Structure formats: C-alpha cells, structure tokens
C-alpha cells in the first residue's frame, strides 16, 4: 500500500493515534510499571546515598534516567502529558457521537428498526387507537415516562426516554482527570511549598523553600507566641499546638492557634503544624507576689540570669529528660538575703519561692521552636473540583443508564394493536424487569 503524505492524512494518522483506547491501555500500563519502580527505588536521596546503598555504577545509572526523582522527572511528566493528550483527543473524537445520541430524534426511528429490538411486547385491544392512547398516556406519565407522539403513515408512534444526559458521564470522568492535572500544574507553577522553624517569642517573614536553598518572602510576619505539647497518660503525644500571631508592618492582625489537621490560612498561604524542636533554654516567668510585678526571661541551661530591679539571680542548674522532653529541672535562686534556694520542679509548672519576707511565683518551662509547613497552592480547588466531578461522573457512568421506550399503535381490521419496545445502554437485566412490569400494567388497562 502506498503511503499518502498529504497533510490531511498525516493529521488523521496523528489524530487516530491519540484517539485510540489501545494507546490509553499502553500508557496506563506504562505509568503503572514506572510507578512500581518509583516505589521500589527510594526517591529523592543524594547521589552519595545511592552509591553507598547500591554501588557508584548503579547510582550513576539511576541518575542518568532520573530514577532518583522519578515522579518529578521529565519522562514521567511526559507520560502524564501523553495520557492527557490521549484523553483530550479521545474525548473530542467521541463527543459528537455521544451528543448525537442524546439529541437524536427517536420518533424518526423507522418501524423496521423498532421491530428488531429484542426487548418488546405486543398486545391488542378493541378500543379505537385514539382512545387506547388516551388510556395509556396517564399510566405512562405516572411512571415517569412523558411521551411525545407523532403520526406516521402506518399509525401512531409514541416515544419517551430517561437519563439521556447520563451518556455524558464518561465524558465527565475523563474531563475530571484533566481538571485534576490542571490543578496540579497550576499548583506547581503558581504555588510554593516551604517550611519554617520559629522559636517561641520570635517571628519570621521569610520561609525556606522545599527542595531549594531559596527563601520565600511571605509579605507579612508570623510570630510564634507559644508552642505546647500535650501528652496522654501513657506518654503518647496528644496535641501539638502553636499560638501564632500574624503581623503586618509590626501591627498585629490576627491571633490564633494551629494544631495538626487544623492549619491557618492567611492571604492564600497556609501554615501547618508539622514538627518542633526542644531547646536547652528555658522560659522563666517570675512574679513578685507583693505588687504583682512580672517579668519573663529566656534562660539558657546552666547560665545565670538576673532580674536587676529586684536584685534576684537564678538559673537552671540541672535537668531530667524523658526522651526528647525535659520533665524536671533543678533551679538555683538567690537574692541579697540568706543562702540561695535550690529545688526541683516539673517543667511547665509553677511554684512559690519563699525568701525572707518575700514571695515569688516562679514558673519555668522548656523552650521550643515550632516547625511549620508552609504552602500556597492555588490549584487545590481545581483538584478538589476535579475529584468531585470524577465521583459524580463515575456514579453516573456506573449506576445510571439511558432508557428509551417506544409504543407503536395502529389499527387493523377494527382491532387496535400495540407494539412496545425498550432499549437501554447498560444494566440490561435491571431494565428487563422494569420493562416487563410496565408492559404488564399497560396490558391490563382494558
């Protein structure tokens, strides 16, 4: 066969290539196989790591084919691109056909075709056709079948359908995949991901971008007022909480706490509680019980601090850790009179220190930095909408169908004969039952 290189033929070749379901199957299989590889080879480690784990040769090989960051590699993205092109062309290719079936003039279906429909029933009645139809119509519409009628040369043709639009279901499913991918692309172009570690009492206006050394300017400040961990009785963590304040030009705008699963969004940027760091510094608050004067200090471990106005000196001289967490601390406390007080206290608790005639409320806790994940993702609503569409589309495709019924009523030798046929595009057995019940009711009318 000679190859014809005229432009339309090349176009057709390309079009048909991308419209084929075979390509879809091959692409889906390839993506699956690639993904399997991507789960077996640990991803996103350094070249040295792979060299140590496997061998330098293998590390080089992995790097050459981007197998160390496969899901971000050019060729994996190309596969997703191929899938998208396939979806677009295939949908465009089939849409006119689907549309035609939705808007088809079913009353123009020739009688010859109708009688070949397997799901059919026929019966006769002594009533004249017009009267018979008048009897049939209310019962049909009572069952949700609003009939349209047309006179033909042989008799009266009636038609009704349900769920013609459900044929769009597959189209919605395929479009939704594209919407999700668009959301992902938007997110990767317009959004960013980063992280920040903010010690208690401090604020930041830049965050570290994930996977790059760059810093991202937030355009406002975030201050960590406090970080707290709550524990269950068995010692498992129950809650990580950060009290955050948003500031713009040093003005406090918003004060809120975030927890895991309860992030804060400000100006499209979302802050997630993700980790923390415990310091060997302590936040110590001292209050003079007489006049209520209070002052808070950040005190490094085994360093002496001083509240000059009161002539008080104090420090943390020892600490007991429970894993990462400092559970108890030993305090050294002195003022001008008498020997210094030395005592143990639970980190996070408050005690009264009695000096000669003076009483101080002393509270101390370990200092933390809160670790935040920071993300801006303008694509996420596309992704979520796509997901909703996907579910709706799947539901329509799997559980709903396009059902049609025709009735043909004609008169022959003073008896009226009625022929009824029904067709459906899926779930044929289910429709069989509905159809036979309906014909039973119609037959029993006279």
């Amino acid at each position, binding site marked *: 066969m000679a190859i014809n290189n005229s432009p339309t033929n090349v176009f057709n070749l390309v079009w048909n290539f991308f419209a084929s379901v075979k390509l879809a199957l091959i692409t889906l299989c390839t993506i699956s196989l690639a993904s399997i590889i991507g789960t077996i080879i640990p991803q996103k480690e350094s070249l040295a790591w792979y060299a140590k784990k496997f061998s330098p040769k293998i590390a080089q090989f992995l790097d050459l084919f981007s197998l160390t960051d496969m899901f971000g590699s050019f060729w994996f993205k190309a596969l997703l691109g191929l899938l998208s092109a396939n979806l677009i062309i295939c949908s465009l290719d089939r849409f006119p056909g689907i549309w035609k079936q939705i808007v088809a003039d079913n009353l123009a279906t020739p009688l010859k075709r109708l009688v070949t429909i397997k799901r059919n029933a026929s019966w006769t009645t002594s009533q004249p056709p017009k009267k018979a139809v008048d009897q049939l119509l209310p019962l049909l519409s009572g069952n949700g079948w609003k009939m349209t009628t047309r006179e033909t040369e042989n008799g009266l043709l009636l038609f009704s359908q349900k769920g013609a639009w459900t044929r769009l279901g597959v189209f919605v499913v395929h479009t939704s995949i594209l919407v999700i991918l668009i959301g992902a692309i938007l997110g990767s172009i317009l959004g960013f991901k980063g992280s920040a570690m903010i010690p208690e009492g401090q604020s930041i206006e830049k965050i570290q971008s994930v996977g790059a050394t760059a810093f991202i300017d937030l355009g406002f400040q975030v201050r960590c007022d406090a970080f707290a961990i709550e524990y269950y009785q068995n010692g498992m963590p129950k809650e990580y909480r950060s009290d955050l304040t948003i500031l713009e030009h040093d003005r406090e705008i918003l004060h809120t706490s975030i927890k895991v*699963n309860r992030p804060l969004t400000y100006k499209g940027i979302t802050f997630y509680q993700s980790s923390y760091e415990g310091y060997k510094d302590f936040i110590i608050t001292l209050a003079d019980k007489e006049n209520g004067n209070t002052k808070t200090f950040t005190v490094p471990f085994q360093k002496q601090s001083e509240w000059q106005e009161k002539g008080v000196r104090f420090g943390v001289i020892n600490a007991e850790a429970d894993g990462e967490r400092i559970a108890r601390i030993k305090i050294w406390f002195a003022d001008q009179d008498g020997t210094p007080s030395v005592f143990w206290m639970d980190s996070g608790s408050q005690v009264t220190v009695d000096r000669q005639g003076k009483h101080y409320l002393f509270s101390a806790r370990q200092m933390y930095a809160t670790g935040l994940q920071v993300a801006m993702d303008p694509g996420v609503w596309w992704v979520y909408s796509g997901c909703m569409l996907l579910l709706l589309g799947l539901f329509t495709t799997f559980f709903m169908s396009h059902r049609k019924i025709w009735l043909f009523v004609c008169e022959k030798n003073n008896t009226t004969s009625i022929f009824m046929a029904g067709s459906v595009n899926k779930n044929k057995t289910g429709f069989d039952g509905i159809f036979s019940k309906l014909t039973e009711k119609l037959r029993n009318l006279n």
Partner: protein
Amino acid sequence: MNSSQLLGITTFTYLFSTLLYVALFVFKVKKLGKFATCLTVIALLIQTLGIGLRWHESYQMGIGHAPLTNMYESVVFFAWTIIVMYLAIEWKFKNRIIGAFAVPFAFLAMAYASISNDATKGISPLVPALQSNWLIAHVITCFIGYAAFTVAAGLGLMYVIKDTGAGKRSSDDKTLLGSLPPLQQIEDITHKTMIFGFIWLTAGIITGAVWANSAWGTYWSWDPKETWSLITWFIYAITLHARHTRGWGGKRVAWLAIIGFFSVIFTYYGVNFILSGLHSYGSN
C-alpha cells in the same frame, strides 16, 4: 464480655461458616445452605457488636475514637465489609456457592488480625496526625473498596476454575464444577463488584488526599502507599477499559480481578512491611 472476646468468637464462627460453605460446594449437601447463611449472619452480628463495644471501650478509657485507626481495627472492618458484601450478593443472586469463595477471605482476615504481631490489638490513643474525620472517611471508603475487590477476586477465581475444560458447559448440578453459576453470571457479578469497588477506591484515594492536605499541605506526595493505591486504581481502570472498549471478556477479566487483588494486598500490607524495609534509613 469484652470486644476482643466477641471478635475472637467471630473468627471461629467465620471458620465454621467457611467450612459449611465449602461443604455445600464440595459435598452438595443442600440442607447445609440455610445453616451456613444463618451462621454467617450470626457471626456478622457478633462482629458488629464487637466493633461497637470496642468503640464504647475506647470512650471508657477516655480516648474515644472510631475503631478504624490501626492495622488491627482496619483488618476487622475489612472482614466485616467482605461479609456484608457477600451476604448482599447471596441475597440478590440467590446463590450460596459464592460463599465458598468469599467467606474464607473474611475468616483469613480475622485470623490474621488475631494472631499477627503486626496488628496490635490494644486500643491506643490517637496521635495528633490521626485526629481527623477525613481519616475515618478515608479508612471506611478504602476498605469498602478493598472488600469489593476481594470478593471480585473470589469470583474471578471461581470463573477461572469453572472455565477449565470440564466445567465450561456443564450446568449439571451433580458435578463439582457444574454447580457453580453459569460463566455469564459469574462474569456479570464480578464486573458489578469491581465497578462498585472502583468507585469506593476512588473516594478512598480522594479522602486520603484531602486528609494529607489538611495535615501537611500536600495532597499528593508520591509516597509508596499513595503510589500503590494509584497503581491499584490503574489496574482496575485498565480492566474496565479493556472490557468496555476492547471487548475483553470472561477469563481475561477474571485474571485481572485476581491480579488487582494482589495489588490491593500489596498496597495494604506489602507497602508497610516489604517496602518499608527497603526504605529504612536506619543505617544513616
């Protein structure tokens, strides 16, 4: 009586119903049929009670949460869903032979849950990341999907067995393979179960993504678990397309249902216990 005892009884009762269904299939003692169904329903009720009691116990411990948050609890829910789904199929298609291919999975799941060291049975409080309604939605949707795929694999196995030369055309109730439902019907039920599972797995992946996004700000990070759930999803998408547009039928779809099941098991189990070994960074 506490929840572990109830769930222990459930395991044994599923074992007995498994034996009854297999006996029904192999020895054709028709009279056993009603008995098998009764026993399965009773086991299901005991299990439901057990799950409910476990829920209640967690509240009594002051750490109340739905019993769907660790390996043990999810396997128990998995078994529960398999039985609910199987009973629905038995009722709808009036066929008890399918029980011999579905109920054993529920028994195996329960047996695994009760003897494995990987599945700790204690009720433990929820760490902060797990305190999310999206997680509950995620576990429920995923496991309904997994259970459907498990039943579909059982049906696929049944198809493959029936399709061997001897069984193919036989509908003679007296032969072993003849008593299996007609190939056409097995294929139909397999397909229906698979699309049911597909829609739930889709919902499961979506709710998982929403959960991840609310916890870490990333709805998809290609971690092995996510990736394997997507691979599983693709396998079923491939099966649907091959069947719908390329006319793949019967035997091939049956095999795909079986392959899909292995992918489900790997997504669920293998990723945690096989890939996690490959991904252990302990040495660094």
